[in-house]
């Protein structure tokens, strides 16, 4: 029953797809502007079967995963350290505050000249663009840990190392993890932006090139794929989050 309700929830999507197909078939929208949904799906299937699209997806996912993982590992470490050590906080906070509104994708031309047009470029754009939001969200999470928890642990003789791993990080985990969720969708935006600005491989570059060559069914198929990748990554991450926070729900 709940399964049925869950699948019924996405019925409007079918409606949109049907409306798309009918609008083009009836001539309300020119097929030059919007290829039929069924044609896009057929092209998507061809591109998947010929391994043309899976190769680009693989390249993109590899870049995204390296950049995202680096941003999360460094970002959470720096954020939690800032929340725990005042000296680090004082030194880094002005830099974080100033760096926060900088649009990192705008540094693209500088980064191109520095590292050249290869995988490292996309990875660096993702890393630079998503590290500051990660630092800020994990800083706020660790800062927001209930002080009574910390004080009682200290009263009971907990050392600073145990305090970090047994008290601060578990208590801040839910907020850190939801901050990382934002980082995840940000990393896909940065990936696609960096691939559109200049890359010969990857799904973002593929979509842009297909559009420039007038291969519109391929362009729509690739863009749908990017959308699905972002959505699937988000839902996978939510499932992972639920597993990681299982101990908390039992309370």
């Amino acid at each position, binding site marked *: 029953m709940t399964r049925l309700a869950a699948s019924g*929830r996405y*019925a*409007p*999507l079918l*409606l*949109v797809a049907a409306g798309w197909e009918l609008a083009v078939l009836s001539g309300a929208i020119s097929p030059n*502007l919007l290829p039929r949904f069924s044609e896009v799906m057929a092209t998507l299937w061809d591109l998947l079967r010929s391994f043309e699209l899976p190769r680009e997806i693989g390249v993109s996912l590899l870049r995204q995963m390296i950049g995202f993982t680096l941003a999360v590992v460094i970002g959470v470490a720096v954020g939690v350290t800032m929340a725990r*050590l*005042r*000296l680090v*906080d*004082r*030194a*880094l*906070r*002005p*830099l974080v*505050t100033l760096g*926060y*509104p*900088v*649009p990192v*994708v*705008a*540094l*693209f*031309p*500088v980064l*191109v*000249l*520095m590292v050249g047009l290869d995988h490292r470029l996309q990875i660096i754009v993702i890393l630079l663009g998503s590290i500051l939001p990660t630092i*800020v969200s994990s800083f*706020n999470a660790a*800062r*927001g840990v209930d*002080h009574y928890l910390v*004080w009682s642990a200290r009263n009971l003789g907990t050392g600073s190392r145990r305090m970090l791993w047994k008290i601060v990080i578990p208590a801040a985990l839910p907020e850190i993890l939801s901050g990382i969720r934002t980082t*995840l*969708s940000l990393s*896909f*935006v940065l990936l*696609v*932006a960096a691939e*559109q*600005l200049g890359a010969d491989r990857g799904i*973002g570059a593929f*979509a*842009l090139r*297909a*559009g420039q060559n007038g291969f*519109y069914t391929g*362009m*729509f198929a690739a*863009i749908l794929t*990017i*959308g699905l990748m*972002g*959505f699937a*990554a*988000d839902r996978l991450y939510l499932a992972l989050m639920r597993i990681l926070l299982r101990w908390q729900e039992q309370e």
Partner: protein
Amino acid sequence: MSAPPENASGAERANSRWGEILSYRPIYSVLALLIAWEVASRLALINPYFLPPPSMVIERAYQILLGEKLLQHLAGTLLRSLAALALCIAMGVPLGVAMARIAPVRWFFDPLISLGLPVPKIALWPIFVLWFGFFDTSKILLTAFACAFPVVSATYLGTRNVDKFVVWSALNLGTGPHRLLWKVVFRAAAPEILTGIQTVLPIAIIIVVLTEMLSGGTGLGAMIMYAGRFADIKTVLVGVLAASLMGYAMIKLFEQLRRRLLAWHQETSATA
């Protein structure tokens, strides 16, 4: 970023003398970084070609400003961002309220919004170019579209979570549906709607700059990309600096606006 409450215990304070000293001038680390950058670049410890000294970047900013080119590009980016934000608010807020109040609207849009939220909207750029061309229309529409998702979702959640008892008391006192919407529901949801708009401000600037980089013409993004083509890194950095300052100013101004709009709300009196 507002400073979190300082709840450190006395022992913690005593342990961090260095922190105390630095705390009076937190801007020192920024100055230190700028000086280190300047010196390292002048002594060619870092490649001055890639990272020219800050003083030379400022000098370049002054030169472009005098030529009025910078103002022209800045105005282009600013106007596009504001147009996109206005459009996004004008479409997003009514849609969010409608989703919360009208069941069929919710049925149709809820899955679309929750599906679209984690999707990188910038991927739609080739479609927008195909439909609306290379100029202002496609840039403004894509930015408005990308910004609409967080605004719709914040408005929807804010309006849906309005305290039922407030609504019931208003109904009991004979408030009509129009007055209920404008005088009760909309105001009660205002803080969350404004938060939704605040999260979208930097996104709007980033997407406008990005579309300018992708298509050329005017605007800071176009200036950056054009300068990059000639390896003119100073001008690129001036563009990045200008875009950052614009984003910062927009965020700060909106915080002021929020305080004014929510003058009646307890959040304002609590911080005052």
